[in-house]
Structures are given as C-alpha cells and as structure tokens.
C-alpha cells in the first residue's frame, strides 16, 4: 500500500487546552497560496463557495432564532463546519455521486441544491417538506433531486450503508463515487470499522469524510481515542488517511478531489479527516458552558471560524471587495427572510399522511400489498 499524505502541516502547533485537542489542524495549508488554475478552481468557483457559506451561516442563525422563539425544532448547527462541507462538495460531482450525510450538514445540503425554504419547512415540520414529508427530524430523509440522504440520526449507521451504495455501483460498473459524512464521535462505532474494512477489501469508490470537531457532544477527543488523528485508522484497513484543516475550504477541496479521483480510478476508498471547530453547542438543546471554559469557547471562535478566513482568502486574491461582501450578506438575508415567511405560512401535513409508505404498494400476485 502506498504511503499517501499530500497535505503537510507547517505552521506552529498551539498547545491543547483541557478539552480542545488542536495538534493537527492549527497549521495552515500551503496550497492556499497557489495560483487558482493549479488548484482547479475558478474565481467564480471561489465566489460561489463563499456565497454558499454565507447563506448557510445566515440560515443557521435564523434557525437558531426560530428555535429560541419556540418555533423551530432541535438543530445541530453547522457553524464552524462550513468550509469543510463546501470544500468537500466542490470536490465531488453532484450530477452523479451519492451523498450520505449526517445531521450537522446545512452547508453541504445547500451546496447540493436543497433550498432554504425546503430546509425551513423541515424545521417547522410543514407540509411540502421534501425530504421525509416532515416525518423526520429536520435535514433527514432523501433529497428529491440529488442522491443525498440520511435515513436516521443514529450515529455511524450511514457508514456501512454508504459502502453498500458503492458496492451496487461497482456491480453495475457505474462510475459514481459515494461520499459519506460523519463526525469524530462516529469513528468509535463498530459500524464505522466494519464499513471501512469492507470498502477496503473490495476497493470500493467511497470517500469517508470525517468532520472532526473535537467533540461528541461534550466528550472531548482525548476521551474518544488515544491517537492524534482519526485518519491514522485508515492504514489498518489498507487505504490512505488524510488529515486536513477543515477551516480551509481549498485544503478540503484538494483532499477530496484527490480522493474522488482515486476512487474513480478504481483505487478504492480514502478517509479524510477535516479538523474543524464546532462554534456553537452540540444542538440548540445543549449548553456548552457546562463543559467548556469561556477561554476555550473564545479560542474556537478566534481560530475556528471559517467564514472570515474565506473572506480574507477572497480579498487577498482580489475577488471580494468590501461592497461585495455586504451584497453577499444582504442577498443571503433576503433569501432566508423570504424562505422563512413562506415556511411559516405553510400548514402542517394532514394526519392521514402518516399512514403512507410504511410498506410498498407493489403487491402483484404475491399479495404483498400494503398493510
């Protein structure tokens, strides 16, 4: 097996705090300085990525408000994960690839074409919610247009499922890659181990994308594992594992592009660990001051917010003026406002709907009709 680690960290590593493990991701990505064509992104690509991040943040804040106003359900904020998600999606091909997401992926979902209105219908559990008919927690279900889905919020179940999705493609010799998202917490589950091992054996086209935000709710990395990086697990299965700075959208994009290329070339899976900070509590139900100091929270915001980082990146390359920055914000605000109004005006789905789709209706002569 080839040793494969194309991203090197160079910046100095800050010491860990009692709860925050920072070793690998504190450094920054040398690629960020490269000319864009070499990276494979156009200026418009970067601008688009930035706009999606801002839209995600704006919507994220709105959902928080709706929750605090007693209107929206529980929400696991994506704040801090935006660059990782946008970088990842950009490295894939939504017209053919599969995406098994988890609950903290507002940005990824927007990047894949889910609209703010669709998402808000989920948070308000209204009729027309396209993913699950508002049967599931927001963000769960299956997307009507892209092969994006999340059957449950049972952590790590999606890992073997993704491997099965890729197995089906392999059997039909279809050139599609499966991207499966999960957190650091999910890495401890048996399902993750089993899924990765199978994918390795069959060299399946899977990208295991771990958004390592250093916490499973309140449990810090040092209580989840005794190694520095989750990516180090990959060697034990026989495929490459890479740790990238997940606050750097270009670094993530590069890593994912390479992994996708590897998968398409029939070389099998890759594990990518994007180090991010979870800027808010685990969900709207959580209070992270129970287990983090104020200094730690501040430090995460200082070091870990990918949006100012992305803005600076664009500004440094002359792609974002102060005025444009304002326009992007205003545009996002308008979109989210409109979506909120529409979502709030929608009715709840009728009760009778809940009896549908327990079983198929394809009975045929076998009598396997719906119950």
């Amino acid at each position, binding site marked *: 097996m080839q040793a494969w680690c194309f991203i090197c960290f160079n910046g100095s590593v800050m010491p860990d705090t009692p709860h925050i493990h920072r070793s690998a991701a504190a450094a920054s990505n040398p690629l960020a300085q490269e000319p864009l064509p070499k990276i494979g992104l156009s200026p418009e690509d970067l601008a688009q990525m930035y706009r999606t991040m801002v839209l995600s943040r704006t919507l994220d804040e709105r959902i928080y408000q709706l929750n605090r106003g007693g209107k929206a359900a529980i929400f696991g904020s994506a704040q801090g994960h935006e660059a990782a998600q946008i970088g990842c999606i950009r490295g894939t091909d939504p017209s053919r690839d599969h995406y098994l997401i988890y609950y903290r992926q507002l940005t990824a979902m927007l990047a894949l074409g889910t609209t703010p209105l669709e998402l808000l219908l989920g948070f308000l559990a209204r009729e027309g919610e396209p993913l699950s008919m508002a049967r599931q927690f927001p963000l769960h279900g299956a997307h009507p247009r892209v092969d994006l889905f999340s*059957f449950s919020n049972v952590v790590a179940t999606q890992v073997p499922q993704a491997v099965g999705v890729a197995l089906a493609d392999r059997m039909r010799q279809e050139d599609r890659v499966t991207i499966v998202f999960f957190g650091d917490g999910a890495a401890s589950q048996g399902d993750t181990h089993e899924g990765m091992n*199978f994918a390795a054996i069959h060299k399946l086209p899977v990208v295991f994308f771990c958004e390592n935000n250093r916490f499973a709710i309140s449990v810090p990395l040092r209580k989840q594992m005794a190694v520095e990086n989750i990516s180090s697990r990959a060697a034990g299965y026989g495929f490459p594992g890479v740790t990238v700075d997940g606050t750097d959208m270009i670094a993530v994009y590069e890593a994912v592009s390479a992994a996708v290329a590897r998968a398409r070339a029939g070389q099998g899976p890759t594990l990518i660990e994007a180090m991010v900070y979870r800027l808010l509590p685990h969900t709207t139900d959580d209070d992270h001051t129970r287990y983090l100091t104020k200094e730690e929270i501040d430090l995460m915001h200082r070091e870990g917010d990918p949006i100012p980082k992305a803005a600076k990146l664009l500004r440094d390359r002359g792609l974002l003026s102060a005025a444009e920055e304002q326009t992007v914000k205003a545009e996002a605000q308008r979109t989210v406002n409109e979506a909120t109004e529409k979502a709030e005006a929608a009715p709840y789905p009728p009760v009778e709907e809940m009896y549908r789709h327990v*079983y198929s209706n394809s009975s045929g002569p076998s009598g396997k009709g719906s119950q």
Partner: protein
Amino acid sequence: MPTMTVIEAVRDAMRGEMRRDPRIFIMGEDVGARGGVFLASEGFLQEFGESRVIDTPLAESSIVGIALGAAVNGMRPIAEIQFADFVWPAINQLVGEAARVRYGTGGRKTAPIVVRIPYGGGVRGGLYHSQSPEVIFAHTPGLRVVAPATPYDAKGMLISALRGDDPVVFFEHKRTYRLVRGEVPADAYMEPCDKAEVKRPGTDLSIFAYGLMLHYALEAARLVHEQDGISAEVVDLRSLRPLDTETILDSVRRTSKALVVQEDTPAVSVGSEVAAVIAEHVFFDLDAPVMRVAPPEIPPMPFSPLQEAAFMPSPEKIAAAIRELAAI
C-alpha cells in the same frame, strides 16, 4: 412434481430468481466456496461468480447495513445471517434502519433486502445455536417477517419476498431443513408473504403454529384424531408480520377454541399477539381460555439432551394440551 427438502427449496428459489433478476445477489459469511454452512448457496459461486456471491467478513451489522445500501441503490440483496443467534449485532441496521427507509423518506427510497435467518432449536445447538429471535422483527412496522414451514411455502414465499419491494426477514427453521420433504413445482411461483394457511381443517378447536411447531402440531392433531376422535384445525401462521388476523379469527369463529403453540419462550411473543387478537376480536365466540404450549421461561435452550427435550414442545405435549382444551 419433484419433491424437495426445505433447504433444497430455498436454494431452488434463490437460484431461479438470481438467474432471472441480475439485481439479486447473495452476501454473508461462507456463502461462497463453502456454499453457506447449511449449503443454501451450494454451487452459486461457480454459477454466478464472486461479484454476486459475496463472502463477507464476520460482521453482521455491516452485512445488513451494506445490503441496505446496495438495495437503496437499485440492487436486491439477499443477506444471509449464518445462525439466528448472530443476528443481534445487525438489529440496529435491520430494525432501526431498514424497516424505516421507506417511511422515513416519505417513500422516496426503499430497501428491498431479504435477510435469511436459519433459526430454531431441537438441534443440540445449546444456548447460541438454537434461538428464535423473531419477536423483535414481528414487532417492527416496516418489516415483513415470514417463517415458512414446508418446502412448498419456502420456495414460493422466498420468490415473493425477492420480487417485493419491502425488507423481508425470512426465517428458516434449521431442523426442518433436511427433515421436511414435500412436493415443489419446478417452475417459479409466488406464495403470499402475508397470509396464514389452514394446513389441516378441523372443527373442535384451532391450533396456531409456525416453523417446526407446525409439523409438531400436525402430528399432534393426527394423534388426537386417531386416539380420541378430536378434530383439531391447524393453522400455519407463516407470516409473523403482518399477522393474518382474518384467517386466525375466522378459524376461531368456527371452532370456538384456540391453542397457540410456539417454540420461542412465551412472555411477550408472537403467540401472545395471537392470543391478544383472539381475546380482543372474537371474545364472544370463545368457549374456553386461549391456551398456550411453549417452553419454560429460561434462556433457549440447554445443550444437555434431556434438558433440551424438556425445553422443546413436542407432539405429545401438544396432544395433551389439545385433550385438555377439548375437554373444557
């Protein structure tokens, strides 16, 4: 018509369907060169090749989870769990996930997997090769759960399962595999996955059973008929989810007495539900308590032979219960 054993019928159904439908493949421990520990897939590797006959690592959760993913992406996997006793690690993917794919996506995705589970005791399997874990599946909306007892039903119901669009948990009683032989059409046919069947008509009382116990119940019905002139109807439940309550209730309406026979321990079981629907829906037709024949409430099942025999219901025990119920 050819005669076959249950295991031959299972093999025949899978082979025929795999020839017919390229989306069907089988995965599980030892299903390849070994042909499965019960030889259900004997010869399949040679005929269908490694890509459709997949020997998996020893990891049940992923066997079902991967099957689920493949099913969602257009395939029709058969996942073999080597012994029912080892299905527990896969419960999360089966009961928690597969059962709810269709519901939780509002019908957008579907997970047509067939999970084949050799189960049951009376085979000197001790505590970990004798279990009957059907309860948790039979309880779960979104799953179809069947337990055919005859070669004819095994083939016809497996074909239905493979042609349907829902996840099906397919229980095969290990002791019937080679013990039970019967006529089976050579061609494909579909036997419904949601219907009970009166396997022996009768007038004095109704017996409800499935799997190996169906055969014991039939034997007991024969015994009491010969020896005591009692006419016992024997209903093969076949489908544990959905329960075919119509056939159940109809039988009790005619006989006015019900005896539920099962191999699984009784508390909170499939048999409980049969008794409950009878007590709820045909109470006024009943002439006697709904009786049950089942093992004691101890972990199924001791390895030592006298104890195993004492644990298992038998035709004699069932016959005794029939006589008791008939006398009320």
